[in-house]
């Protein structure tokens, strides 16, 4: 019964297509209140006063038809009916327990970013609650704030710690300083990426119940139940068994529900604690966009030494990310971005210096790729720049430097697996007809672009006599470009060892096996993949496997659902946990080594009758030979890398400066493909998000607040915008992944943006180094 490698339909697919899947907003509890958050309207300052105001009499309405009738009836907003929570009401510690514990649940005296939570309100009437929220008045004394990583680095104001720096890393390989003298070429470049909203279609939301006797229980949309669990223990000062966190069906995460749910869960729980009633808190889209985390904006500076035969001699990389007002996950985002900054190339001398700095923006957080898309964007644009400077084609320059088995990465990690980036590149070029297109586009673009035919690009207001030749050319210019990259799966460095993840498995007397893990299904296919792995390992039917709903009361901590680790790391634990069941049965003599499904079911029944529950657990063990030095930031950063070559074909409209991606080919080696439909779905979705990151999704900031926090004005790609996304896998089974699989979730976020900008440069000859690349920016450069 071969299941691995088959496109088994999604476990919960039927529920999802019929509308029966229950997301948190679909749940209702008796006596439930709704909760909302009152947030800071200034980016930085001291809270002077909080008051609960009334509405002008003219706008009051008769609420006598609503239960319970307004007591007394003189005030329109019956504040006495509301549960009101401020920082003073927090029973335990007022911080979101994560890394540095610097982010308060509720600002007490000081606010450090716009939209920072200050007051919580709950009431049973959702409509009245919104009205009340508008009538909480907070007076601030504003202080000077910092809104860019440049200003933070320059210490224009010190807003965090002594120097605005959350975290620094230094990766040092060989001797960069000595290398410059031997270089035939030295090429420098600077690259920037903007914030990006995760834009899961289900906004953040939770329901909480809380009281001193029963403790705190939270149901919600989240990626990491045990993160929330850890945070609530501190917030309430309760023992861990008094906190229970249950993941409900989750409508997308992409990192946006990695750390943020700890905050909203705490808020709902505080309201529940004070009111004694269940409290539901669901953000509307506008609140979710302005208040929750986004991808860290970044700046990367490259200085690269190359020999005349096109070999990399030294790479000096300075990578800075904007962490926002609190540390949250910035150190780990920075870590991944740092380690990926030098890419899949062999270079003897590498120095990467990186920093995560504070600004007075809402904290930036996890988003698919986790720092890597930022630093890989810079590198893959820079590789094209270096190639051009030294007179090689982009592919030839890369081919001369691709990392190979036995060579070392920037952290001196020896690549022990077979890597064939040349082969991936060849296949990608074949699939896209790259060379022929490169030639054809150049000819076509040339034919239509003699100077007199260029579109009107002069600034008409300042130029009295306009340069008007023949009519502007409305024919698109076309280009093709690519990026080559890698993405490490699992936690960085010793992360997996510290996590000590555990997975359990339990069989019942019918031989049905339940997988117990805290890893969440957020659309990526956890339920299906775990069931495939378990069924395959035991040689039983897929339908006999159930994947338990993540509930900290019932499942062990298999770690967070992040870092492309669920299939590769946790999936392996699922495999060993269910094999543990088999071993128990074999050990007790109830099952032979060779068995049928019927044998297995019979053995389960006998075991349970004889010995009671049949359970097994499995804990993470690092693959042999893995070493990592946290001090030097050196060694085996990841157990395995996925490798990829992505090719983008674009057209550029010279009248509107708009770019459209016309075709996209994604070729990758991800070990063994567990489920081709799900795997391709991961890649396609990631590519579409990355196209958004490159060309559409622009967060407009005004004084540290997102000014375009609506889906109407922050525009993600629609069905009409995405190109055909063609996905191809090369398989090279990874010895330590279940069935040979490696992680893939984040990989597709890394390559598209640089591939697209490389294609744009190919089409119009202008080098753009900042994303999102909006038509307004294209116009400025095209008009020069």
């Amino acid at each position, binding site marked *: 019964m071969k299941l691995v490698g088959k496109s088994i339909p999604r476990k919960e697919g039927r529920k999802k297509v019929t509308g029966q899947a229950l997301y948190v907003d679909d749940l209702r509890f008796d006596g439930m209140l709704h909760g909302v958050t009152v947030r800071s309207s200034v980016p930085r300052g001291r809270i002077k006063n909080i008051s609960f105001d009334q509405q002008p009499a003219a*706008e009051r309405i008769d609420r006598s038809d609503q239960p319970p009738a307004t007591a007394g009836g003189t005030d329109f907003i019956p504040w006495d009916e509301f549960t009101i929570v401020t920082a003073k009401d927090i029973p335990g510690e007022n911080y979101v327990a994560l890394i540095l514990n610097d982010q308060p649940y509720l600002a007490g005296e000081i606010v450090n970013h716009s939209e920072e939570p200050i007051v919580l309100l709950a009431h049973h009437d959702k*409509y009245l609650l919104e009205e009340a929220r508008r009538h909480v008045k907070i007076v601030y004394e504003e202080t000077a704030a910092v809104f860019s990583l440049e200003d933070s680095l320059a210490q224009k104001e010190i807003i965090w710690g002594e120097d605005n720096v959350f975290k620094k890393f230094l990766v040092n390989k060989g001797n960069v300083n000595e290398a410059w003298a031997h270089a035939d070429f030295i090429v420098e470049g600077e690259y920037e990426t903007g914030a990006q909203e995760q834009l899961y279609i289900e906004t953040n939301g939770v329901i909480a119940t809380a009281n001193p006797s029963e403790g705190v229980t939270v149901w919600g949309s989240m990626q990491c139940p045990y993160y929330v669990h850890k945070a609530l223990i501190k917030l309430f000062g309760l023992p861990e068994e008094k906190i229970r966190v249950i993941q409900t069906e989750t409508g997308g995460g992409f990192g946006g529900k990695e750390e943020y749910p700890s905050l909203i869960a705490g808020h709902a729980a505080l309201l529940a604690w004070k009111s004694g009633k269940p409290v539901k808190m669901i953000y509307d889209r506008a609140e979710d966009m302005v208040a929750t985390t986004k991808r860290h904006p970044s700046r990367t500076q490259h200085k690269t030494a190359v020999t005349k035969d096109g070999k990399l001699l030294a790479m000096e990389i300075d990578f800075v990310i904007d962490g926002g007002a609190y540390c949250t996950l910035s150190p780990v985002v920075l870590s991944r971005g740092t380690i990926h900054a030098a890419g899949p190339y062999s270079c003897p001398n590498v120095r990467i210096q990186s920093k995560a700095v504070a600004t007075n923006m809402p904290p930036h957080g996890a988003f698919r790729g986790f720092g890597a898309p930022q630093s890989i964007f810079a590198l893959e644009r820079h590789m094209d720049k270096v190639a051009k400077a030294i007179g090689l084609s982009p592919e030839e320059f890369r081919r001369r430097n691709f990392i190979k088995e036995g060579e070392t990465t920037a952290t001196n990690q020896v690549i022990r697996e077979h890597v064939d980036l040349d082969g991936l590149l060849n296949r990608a070029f074949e699939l896209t007809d790259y060379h022929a297109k490169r030639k054809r586009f150049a000819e076509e673009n040339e034919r239509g672009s003699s100077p007199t035919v260029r579109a009107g690009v002069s600034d008409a207001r300042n130029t009295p006599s306009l340069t008007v030749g023949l009519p502007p050319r409305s024919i698109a210019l076309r280009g093709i470009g690519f990026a080559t990259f890698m993405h490490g799966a699992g936690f960085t460095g010793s992360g997996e060892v510290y996590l000590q993840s555990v997975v359990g498995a339990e069989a019942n007397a019918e031989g049905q096996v339940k997988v117990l893990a805290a890893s969440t299904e957020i659309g990526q296919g956890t339920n299906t993949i775990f069931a495939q792995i378990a069924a395959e390992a035991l040689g039983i039917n897929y339908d006999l496997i159930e994947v338990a709903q993540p509930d900290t009361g019932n499942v062990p901590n298999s770690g967070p659902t992040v870092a492309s680790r669920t299939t590769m790391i946790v999936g392996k634990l699922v495999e060993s946990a269910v094999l543990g069941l088999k071993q128990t049965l074999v050990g007790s003599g109830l099952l032979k080594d060779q068995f049928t499904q019927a044998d297995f079911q019979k053995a389960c029944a006998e075991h349970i009758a004889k010995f009671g529950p049949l359970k097994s657990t499995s804990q993470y063990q690092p693959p042999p030979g893995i070493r990592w030095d946290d001090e030097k930031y050196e060694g085996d950063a990841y157990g395995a890398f996925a490798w990829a070559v992505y090719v983008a074909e674009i057209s550029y409209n010279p009248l509107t*400066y708009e770019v459209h991606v016309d075709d996209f080919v994604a070729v990758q080696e991800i070990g063994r493909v567990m489920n081709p439909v799900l795997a391709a779905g991961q890649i396609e979705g990631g590519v579409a998000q990355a196209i958004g990151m490159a060309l559409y999704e622009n967060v407009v900031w005004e004084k540290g607040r997102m000014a375009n926090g609506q889906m109407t004005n922050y525009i993600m790609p629609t069905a*009409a915008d995405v190109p055909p996304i063609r996905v191809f896998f090369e398989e090279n089974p990874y010895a330590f992944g279940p069935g040979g699989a490696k992680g893939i979730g984040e990989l597709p976020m890394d390559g598209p943006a640089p591939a697209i900008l490389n294609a744009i440069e190919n089409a119009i000859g202008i080098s753009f180094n900042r994303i999102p690349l909006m038509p307004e920016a294209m116009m*400025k450069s095209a008009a020069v």
Partner: protein
Amino acid sequence: MRGYVPTYSLISPAKLAEALDVLAQDNGAWKPFAGGTDLMVLLEAGRLPHKNYVNIWNLKELRGIEVTDSQITLGGLTTYTEVQNHPVLQEEFPMLCQAAKETGGIAIQNRGTLGGNIVNASPAADSPPALLAYDAELELVSKAGARRIPYSGFHVGYKQMDIRPDELLRAITLPRQTKGLTHYYRKVGTRKAQAISKVCFAAVAGVKNGEIDHVRMALGSVAPISLRCFKTENAMTGQPLNDQTIAAAKRSLTVEISPIDDIRSTKDYRLQVSLNLLEDFLAHLQ
């Protein structure tokens, strides 16, 4: 931050006459509510200050498309979907069909109305430039009677219109005088669907004896109102299609429109793209 729903009124008269009676009360106490695709967005954002609405969605008197030899009359409640599906509009007023097709997704097109699009008075609306270029007339009705006005004079300032609180936009009439003209409509909104225009350009013209004839153009998102560009039309009318004319037209358009920077785009971009599209439009006439 949703508006406080219980404070809003929405009454549903069965007949136009009843609706007009309500609108005539208390000078502006009641406003019409059609497909809701704009007003409900404001309600949800807590930015709908007016509270009392008359639901006109079911008024048959405001529906239907009537065709005569000389004109086509669209009821104010004609939806974008109905616009796109109408054979005469497809044949003679393709820019209007294009605008309807590019406004929101299909769910919006099924609900959004031409009349609503006009009186919502967003300068970024997509159908007004096409209607302006087609020389539309509006029929406004009230208890006191009906009046017909050229659409080109309807928008007088940002969200300011030549319509009284007691009046309803009953219908939009287009003269069937587009045969032989070149129609040029471009919506520029960065993404291909569900976009809000950064620039919306609609123009028609013919060429007679080498000279530009019957030119009418209008732009959206580049001024406080959807703007019929009379001055630029004058700069082109009767002129030969040559470099001088193109230059003169561009000079004229540069001063006629007044784009601004906002969260969606920049003044410079809107101006430059408008000029590019003007030039491209003229290129299409050749």
